[in-house]
């Protein structure tokens, strides 16, 4: 893994970029002056101690939280110009799993895929070892099984940009390997991935961004 390569020598044709980003949560500036670039087929790993702003940056990238300063762009076009197009091109998996206890795993995944135009639900479930769980309501799933189901949304309907906040939380080694395989396949197809993690992950050629480097100095943030 290379540390912050993008500010030194940015890749030639970046797909997803941010420049001079700052983010405020509540009344506190979490990071400032942050640049990143994720090329097609690229992966960016967000690291940093607790509270350094990894989740906040992912929310900014998804368009959930507007950045306090700076600019986000996809293929050079600012996101602000067409937020709807940005939503259509991304998958965001946050800390919560967005599952309904009374719907079955297959129904749940079918709904999320259907809202994005449909996809192969059965194959996605199989990909994360959930085929046997398909007909059962989500209330029966354990913490790790729920996480697997949330991640299955990634492969059920295609989207070029994946934003994953600590995706391996609660996964066993088998599921972690399945996720890494899904990410590798996605990148082979030209997709981008940004994810945060505290555990070392097996992502060949991924760039790493340490949020600790962008902590705003006090006084500067006004």
């Amino acid at each position, binding site marked *: 893994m290379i540390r912050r390569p993008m500010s030194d020598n940015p890749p030639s044709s970046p797909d997803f970029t941010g420049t001079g980003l700052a983010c405020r949560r509540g009344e506190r500036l979490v990071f400032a002056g942050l640049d990143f670039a994720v090329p097609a087929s690229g992966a960016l790993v967000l690291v940093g101690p607790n509270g350094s702003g990894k989740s906040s940056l992912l929310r900014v990238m998804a368009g959930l939280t507007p950045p306090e300063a700076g600019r986000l762009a996809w293929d050079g076009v600012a996101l602000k110009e067409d937020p709807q197009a940005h939503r259509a091109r991304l998958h965001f998996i946050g800390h919560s799993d967005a599952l309904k*206890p*009374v719907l079955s795993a297959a129904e749940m995944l079918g709904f999320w895929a259907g809202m994005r135009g449909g996809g192969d639900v059965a194959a996605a479930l199989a990909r994360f070892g959930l*085929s046997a769980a398909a007909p059962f*309501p989500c*209330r*029966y799933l354990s913490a790790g099984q729920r996480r697997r189901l949330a991640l299955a949304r990634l492969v059920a309907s295609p989207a070029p940009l994946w934003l994953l906040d600590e995706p391996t939380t609660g996964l066993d080694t088998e599921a972690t390997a399945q996720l890494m395989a899904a990410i590798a396949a996605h990148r082979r197809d030209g997709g981008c991935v940004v994810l945060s993690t505290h555990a070392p992950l097996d992502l060949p050629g991924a760039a790493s961004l340490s949020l600790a480097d962008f902590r705003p100095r006090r006084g500067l943030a006004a």
Partner: protein
Amino acid sequence: MFRFANPNRFMNWSGKLLPWCAAATAILLIVGTYLALFVAPPDYQQGEAVRIMYVHVPAAWMASFVYGVMAASSAVALIWRHPVADIAAQQSAPLGAGFTLLCLVSGSLWGEPMWGTWWVWDARLTSVLVLFFLYLGYIALVNAFDEPTRGARAGAILALVGVVNLPIIKFSVDWWNTLHQPASVFRIGAPTIAASMLWPLLIMAVGFTLFYVTLLLVRMRSALMAAKLRALRLQEFQAA
């Protein structure tokens, strides 16, 4: 599974009892209906409308009787954690609600010709209505949970709380009505019942009780089988 060990015994004896119950119910209800419609005399005041009584009064009795059964089985279920008692309480509730509704509807139909209105806020009528809501609350609570066992336990607690409250509600409703409306015109009369009316009524009452027992056994058996099936399918999911 452990928890379905003794239900097997229940399935055995209930299976044997069921045909007898069903046959007795059919005979009593047919005889009772015949007596009520064709043998019992019309009332000198109320005319033919009095025949509603043969449905109305047994239904009223069953409404409170079934609640008693429900509360008793809930107590058994809570204290001894007996799964069959749980199922008896749960499966009784819709039947009790049905009898209560039948009492309300038949009473309303009777009230139209007798009192000129479908409904009055008489104490006895009102407490039947409240009983109906207690049934509905129980049914809603039991079905409101993801896990069937949780609903059963919550329902059992509710049924017991309700049994403490039912007399209080009944007593306060009586008080309320006499307070607001002394010497009501609309009192449900307690006519001195002639034997020719009493016999059909008693036969219908026993028929209703057996009808309830029959339906309860059928419902409990199918609920137990459904639970077994569900457990088997879940076990399959886990094994896979």
